[in-house]
């Protein structure tokens, strides 16, 4: 289809007072494929009709709107059937630069030129709509899984619930009681999981498969191929999405060896005490004698890092609950609760206070210096650094250890993904399924698979119930998106996906390795890559990875960025007019630039901003292009990489840091100074400090001097 561009230059919101719009109109008229150029004092008001008419009647199929940021007015500037390119003349020009200045005008000119060339290359993506299956598979029949199944069923989905054990209910079945979940948060409550189990079992839309295991999951959101083994028989299922809720286990006994677990018979974990409480008899394991003194150690000191990271905010409350068990079963008992940092978040503080009211429960903050065997089968606990003063010794009949809640590994059981990148879900630093914890907590790094309950983070029954239902809603969203060929978080609704120009592929496999979401597989026997479309989150990390640049999207490619770089007019022989290419991550950095404008902070006029989907999508060749076009510097603005990353695509920023080696190599090949290319971490909240940091970078570049390649 022939391109027919309409360019619409808006002069509202201060744009007209800041730049010469006639100059912009002239630039637009001189560009290729442009059929109409129009201006308005406010295209977002009734004049939007002008654009709509041009699209509907005059055959304009590519709309370039030079006005406000692409982040705003997306509902107004939506013209079905046309591709839309937004040139940001408001936030990043008029609101952040001095009006009437020569450099401000050339910034606006370049922005329009870049927009027009990008528009010339834009294609309307054709969505992939092969994945239309909507059944929800829930793996794990505990409280989280049951809530997910019921939540999905109530929202109208068909659900298959797979549970490894012969009965539903999960760990909750083994509990005596649960700590209070309702006001006034004082008294223990019944677990009540039976009701949840019965509800799930009697729900017509939930197929319950107990004593069953998932043997394998392949395919993609909207079209997962699942094999479930039950009673020795394998059964094939087709589901649209998966909620993974296989729960937790206590940390290994070896983690708690220092507290005598395994060597002293009267040292037990909180899980063992739960069984005793459920049976109604708390006795010493060594001789079955009734207990009168019990100590509960939180194991939350500095030396317990491996224990506390698995849910101290839950296990502390469990300890309070267990103190209550013991006190109510054995009225003349004394219970010591030893902690380093008591965690009773939110309303549970009331429960803590309630347990404190019982004079038979003695609390102290302390460091445990030793656990040894005491007189008459008792356990001796030595404490130091306690507010009681000096060393304190306890002799107790029973020592209970608050054991951390380690998530069940997806690597060894539960999912068995048939993905090139492995059978499990990639995990974060603490072994939980990795996700952008703040922004999209339920997303895992396998699209369409959602973690819920204690596999996601340690939590109690109430939280797990909410978590399961929430994950179910995300799962339903994902099949809705998949059936329309659209992406889920963070590029929700994006219809584009990568395509491969395979004739030039060197079969290095890097794209399939670096994709944070395991979306790229290799054709068996040929080792050529292909994208499993609905797994893809459209971040473009593959595009950044490919050493021969054969991966592109209909509306985002290395070629497009190269054309935009080329469209910038680089002045020669003026040291006061450097040109710096800014590749700004669309998730945080680009909005931060907008916010600087909204707050009327002045940005350096020498920056030429190209938004990128993720720093991970930046191909080293983009920087090389910029330098060979005479740019004096390249700045990569994006999210924080590493263990506590902020990257919305998890690995993008981190991959860039390794690719920067290639960029520096390019610089040295071009005999340029390494300072010319830099990565700058920006969070969306950094807009205040950002202008100053950018100005400093410009000063650095000025100090280095002009790029000697200018004019070649």
């Amino acid at each position, binding site marked *: 289809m022939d391109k027919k561009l309409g360019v619409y230059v808006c002069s509202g919101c201060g744009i007209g007072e800041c730049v010469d719009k006639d100059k912009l109109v002239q630039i637009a008229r001189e560009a290729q494929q442009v059929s109409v150029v129009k201006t308005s004092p406010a295209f977002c008001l009734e004049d939007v009709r002008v654009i709509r008419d041009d699209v509907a009647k005059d055959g304009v199929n590519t709309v370039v709107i030079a006005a406000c940021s692409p982040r705003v007015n997306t509902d107004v500037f939506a013209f079905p059937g046309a591709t839309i390119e937004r040139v940001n003349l408001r936030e990043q020009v008029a609101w952040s630069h001095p009006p009437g200045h020569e450099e401000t005008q050339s910034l606006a000119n370049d922005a329009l030129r870049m927009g027009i060339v990008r528009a010339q290359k834009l294609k309307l993506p054709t969505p992939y709509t092969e994945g239309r299956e909507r059944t929800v598979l829930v793996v794990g029949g505990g409280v989280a899984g049951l809530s997910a199944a019921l939540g999905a069923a109530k929202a109208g989905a068909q659900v298959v619930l797979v549970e490894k054990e012969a009965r539903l209910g999960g760990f909750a079945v083994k509990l005596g009681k649960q700590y209070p979940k309702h006001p006034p948060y004082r008294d223990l409550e019944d677990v009540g999981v039976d009701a949840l189990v019965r509800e799930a079992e009697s729900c017509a839309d939930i197929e319950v498969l107990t004593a069953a295991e998932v043997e394998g999951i392949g395919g993609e959101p909207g079209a997962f191929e699942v094999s479930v083994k039950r009673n020795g028989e394998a059964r094939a299922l087709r589901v649209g999405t998966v909620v993974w809720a296989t729960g937790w286990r206590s940390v290994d006994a070896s983690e708690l060896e220092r507290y005598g677990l395994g060597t002293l018979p009267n040292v037990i974990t909180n899980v063992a005490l739960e069984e005793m409480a459920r049976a109604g008899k708390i006795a010493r394991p060594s001789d079955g004698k009734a207990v009168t003194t019990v100590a509960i150690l939180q194991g939350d000191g500095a030396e317990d890092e491996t224990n506390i990271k698995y849910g101290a905010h839950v296990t502390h409350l469990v300890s309070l609950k267990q103190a209550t068990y013991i006190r109510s079963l054995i009225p003349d008992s004394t219970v010591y609760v030893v902690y380093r940092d008591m965690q009773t978040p939110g309303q549970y503080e009331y429960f803590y206070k309630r347990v404190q009211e019982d004079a038979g429960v003695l*609390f102290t903050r302390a460091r445990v210096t030793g656990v040894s065997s005491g007189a008459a089968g008792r356990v001796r606990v030595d404490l130091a650094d306690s507010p009681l003063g000096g*060393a304190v010794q306890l002799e107790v009949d029973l020592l209970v250890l608050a054991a951390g809640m380690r998530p069940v590994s997806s690597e060894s059981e539960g999912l068995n993904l048939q993905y090139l990148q492995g059978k499990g879900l990639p995990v974060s630093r603490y072994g939980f399924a990795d996700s952008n914890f703040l922004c999209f907590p339920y997303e895992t790094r396998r699209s369409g698979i959602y973690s819920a309950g204690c596999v996601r983070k340690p939590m109690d029954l109430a939280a797990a119930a909410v978590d399961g239902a929430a994950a179910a809603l995300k799962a339903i969203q994902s099949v809705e998106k998949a059936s329309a060929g659209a992406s889920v978080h963070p590029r929700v609704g994006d219809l584009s996906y990568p395509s491969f120009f395979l004739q030039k592929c060197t079969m290095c496999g890097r794209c399939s390795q670096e994709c944070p979401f395991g979306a790229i597989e290799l054709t068996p026997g040929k080792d050529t890559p292909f994208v499993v479309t609905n797994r893809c989150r459209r971040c473009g990390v593959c595009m950044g990875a490919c050493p021969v640049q054969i991966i592109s999207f209909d509306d985002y490619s290395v070629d497009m960025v190269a054309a935009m770089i080329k469209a910038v007019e680089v002045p020669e022989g003026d040291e006061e007019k450097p040109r710096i290419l800014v590749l700004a991550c669309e998730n945080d950095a680009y909005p931060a630039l907008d916010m600087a404008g909204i707050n009327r902070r002045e940005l350096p006029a020498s920056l030429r901003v190209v938004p990128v989907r993720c720093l991970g999508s930046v191909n080293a060749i983009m920087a090389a292009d910029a330098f060979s076009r005479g740019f004096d510097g390249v700045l990569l603005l994006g999210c924080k990489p590493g263990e506590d990353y902020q990257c919305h695509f998890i690995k993008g920023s981190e991959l860039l840091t390794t690719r920067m080696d290639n960029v520096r190599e390019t610089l040295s090949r071009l005999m340029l100074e390494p300072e010319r290319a830099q990565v700058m971490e920006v969070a969306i909240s950094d807009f205040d400090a950002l202008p100053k940091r950018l100005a400093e970078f410009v000063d650095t570049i000025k100090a280095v001097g002009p790029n000697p390649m200018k004019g070649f």
Partner: protein
Amino acid sequence: MPGVARPDLAFTREILGLGAGDLSSCYQCGTCSVVCPISTADNPFPRKEMIWVQWGFRERALANASIWLCHQCATCTAYCPRDAKPASVMAALREASITHYAAPAFMGRALADPRYLPLLLAMPVLIFLALLGWLGHLGSLPQGRIVFSKFIPILYIEGIFVAFMALAMLGALGGGVRYWRAMSRQMGGDGTGPQRALLPTVVTILRHRKFSECASHAPGERRTHKGHLHRTHLAVFYGFLGLVVTTTSVGIGIYAFGYLTPWPLWHPVKLLGNASGLAVIAALAVFAWRRIADGARAGKSTYSDWLFLTVLLLTTLTGFLCQALRLADLQRLAYPMYVVHLVLIFFLLVYIPYSKFAHLVYRTTAMLYAASRAPAAEAR
């Protein structure tokens, strides 16, 4: 190095019952010690006392100078984030320590328990009735102008009070020594004897310096409800001292100069006595009113608080009544009122080592201990 911890939860419950029921909500954050004017870096008072009570560490909590060095400014209670009312716990500890160190022990229990109140009152009542019976005044009142010494000669009263006050002094000495020894055991110390500390301590008490120091260290704007304490206690203290001086002067007047009572109202000693009595009554009225008005926020008052307050107030009031009835020449009322007044004085003074009045024994002991034998940091 202490042995295995043996919590005495009966002690915990005892303290909880002495108006310190909110203690259980203490979670050892230490805010109280931050705001407390007498807390130091190596003596986090009253935070450590709070957990000692929670853990039933009776000895450590009671053999402790800090609880008596505290002058109940109640800043801790005002700032406690959990409303555990540390000041009330300290007051309860003081009350418990009076019972704990009482010599003989049964007197301590008797003053702490309302069931023994009739018995405690019966003792002076019976003593004075027996005396009146022996004097033959039970059935007939003396005629003529009212002169109380006609009813009960002063010599007999002196005899009774000297004998019983000697017992009370022994009791006070016994309690003070037991407290001192307990502190020496628990807290240790590396100072010298109390002789050198005596004078400065007495001066401190006379000047009420601790009250003013504590009150002037308020960390912020929160109301402690105890801001009046310095002035009110000063009034009651000097008022009471004035009454003691009055009584002593009257004794000297009678025995040394044969200047018999009643003395005229314009006499300087008489003026001092009346002014002092008024000061005491006014101060006690403030104390009582604040206990009622601020009870919910500043902490509950206990039996022992009210007993002391009531007895002191009634003693002073009946003194005034005696004088008024005498001047009004109402024989039938004046003489019986005089007996009531004597009974109350007996109750007030003879039971000093066991009632809340014992604070003059234990607080002075604690101040002497702190001034003379600063305990080593370790022992605290």
